[in-house]
């Protein structure tokens, strides 16, 4: 499996990611690091605690990372959470709705993690 195939599998935007990081080597580096990124666990915990500050900060950071990596679905979902909890913005969703979106993020993330594992094993073997 190559990088483009990985992106197809996880529904990511390869061309966008390569426009940001410019070389495959860098994209490879950061996609391999994604499964270990604690931001997903941190957002999940913030959702459980319904901690507005942590929700905003983690969603905001996730939005940045996934935007750079061309993981557009996760990026869109993180953006919704980030705007929901941006200081000064009025709340528009219920807590359940928020948790549901975080659940969607987790699902997307888990799919990506599985696919990335396949990608790395195919590359390294």
């Amino acid at each position, binding site marked *: 499996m190559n990088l483009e195939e990985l992106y197809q599998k996880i529904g990511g935007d390869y061309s966008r990611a390569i*426009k*940001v990081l410019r*070389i495959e080597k860098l994209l490879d*580096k950061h996609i391999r*690091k994604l499964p270990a990124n604690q931001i997903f666990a941190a957002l999940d915990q913030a959702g459980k605690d319904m901690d507005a500050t942590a929700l905003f900060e983690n969603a905001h*950071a996730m939005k*940045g*990372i996934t935007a*750079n*990596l061309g993981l557009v679905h996760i990026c869109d979902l993180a953006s919704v959470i980030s705007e929901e909890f941006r200081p000064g913005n009025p709340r528009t969703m219920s807590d359940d709705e928020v948790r549901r979106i975080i659940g969607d993020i987790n699902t997307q993330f888990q799919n990506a993690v599985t696919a990335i594992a396949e990608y790395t094993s195919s590359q390294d073997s």
Partner: protein
Amino acid sequence: MIKSRQIQRPQRVLVVDDQEINRDALGIILEDYYEVLYAENGRQAMNVLQDYHGDISIIMLDLMMPEMNGFEVLQALKADDQLKSIPVIVLTADKSAELQALQMGAADFITKPFVDMDEVILARVSRIIELSEGRQLISAAEHDSLTGLYSRNFFFEYAYRIYTYHPELHMDAVVLNIEQFHTVNDLHGREFGDEVLRVIGSEIRAFLRESEGIASRIEADRFDIYCIHQNDYASLLERFQKKVSEISPNISIHLRMGVKEWQKGIEPFLLFDRAQVACNKVRGDYQTPLMIYNEDMQKKELLNQQLLNDLRPAIEHHQFKVYYQPKYDIRCNPPRLCSCEALIRWNHTDLGMIPPFSFIPLFEGNGLINIVDSYVWAEAARQVAEWRRKYGITIPVSVNLSRSDVFDPTLVDRLVRLVKDHHLDPKQFKLEVTESAYTDNAQQLLDVIEQLRDLGFEVEMDDFGSGYSSLNMLSEMPIDVLKMDMKFIRNIETSPTDLRLVQLILDIASYLHVPVVAEGVETIGQLDLLRKSGCDLVQGYFFSPPVPPEEFELLIQKECETERNGNI
């Protein structure tokens, strides 16, 4: 040759972002063009800035970071004099943060993520660095780093703007100098000298906080202040002098000040020129170190400028005339015409006859006296040769040798060629040297005199006794004739002291086996006393004032007559 790239400082970009992917995304864009440094948060960024002593061209700053966020970094930069001039580009995904960042001093912003942004990022970074470096260069050029005052060009530009756009402000020009500043540096070291300059700069800035104006260290120890008219410049000078005196109680440093008060229509550059003239007038005057430029100085300055401008045309149009004053040998009875001194006169087309004291010191001051001297030498040699053809006798002539002639490497050759061209014996072309030629670089003068005497020229020491180092000069410089200054002669009929001094000088000359010429002899009484005292030769109005060549010929004719009668 040094290429322009080699004089560029290294351009460093500090990327501050807690997300490695953002740092990498920027790094990959920038690394081909800049030295890129990275920091994961604001705290790390501040450490990098300290490590590099602020020598960073630009900061790319994320706003949301742990430990110390971007806004806190902007605040810390603003508060630090060394760091506040470093431009910052804020990296943000939030439109709402942009305005706040710009208000806090960010130069620009770039929106994350950096999709298809490489050209935009490079262009922004490059333009902002260029602007910032331009600003830094201007700022460095605008101020003198030692005193913090304006540098010369900026000072005059700003002074000119004040003059042009605020004619209601009546600004005076003040020039402040340190007496013998080079000696202060030589004796106490450059660091001490710099400290003196810093103290003066600081006190001038303090003064300008109280009174409107601007100031500059124009060069070395010259300070120019363009300020609203002050009623008491003596107090201002005293204020600066007091500060300087406080630096070290054991070292005395003296300031002098020249002022040109506001005058309608006189632009700053000219105003300061005149203040400088006033300041130069009090050079070395520790009792009255302040001079306000006045009309007499202006007239004198204008006259000097006119004379300087007119010198070369005057030579071309033969406005200079050489007059001759006879010297008589009083050992004979009646006294015999034995030689003469060539003296310059200037018959100016517009100004009429100008006395030598009006232009000789002026030309001596800037080296132009060489032109005048050369003219006199050529004319005198020609004249003596002409008299020889006409009357069959050679009247030796003495000419002046100025201090700046001594430094002319062609001097000896020129004099040799001159006497050769007119078939004169070098002995018949005598050179009068004054004490002022001796005081500056005596060795150079002694070398030149030695060469000239070896070639047969005779050297006369002029104005002996008029200065303080005549005896020094006499002990070191071989001479052929001693010319006693006229001030000794003036009162010998009434002052036994002066007569005794004259006798002492004659004794010295006798001891050295050199003849003495007494200058300024005007009366028969003076002549008798000099003769009785053993003086050899005299020059003065008693026999004749300096006269044009045609009148001098009458004296030659008379001498020829006497000789013929003597022979009968």
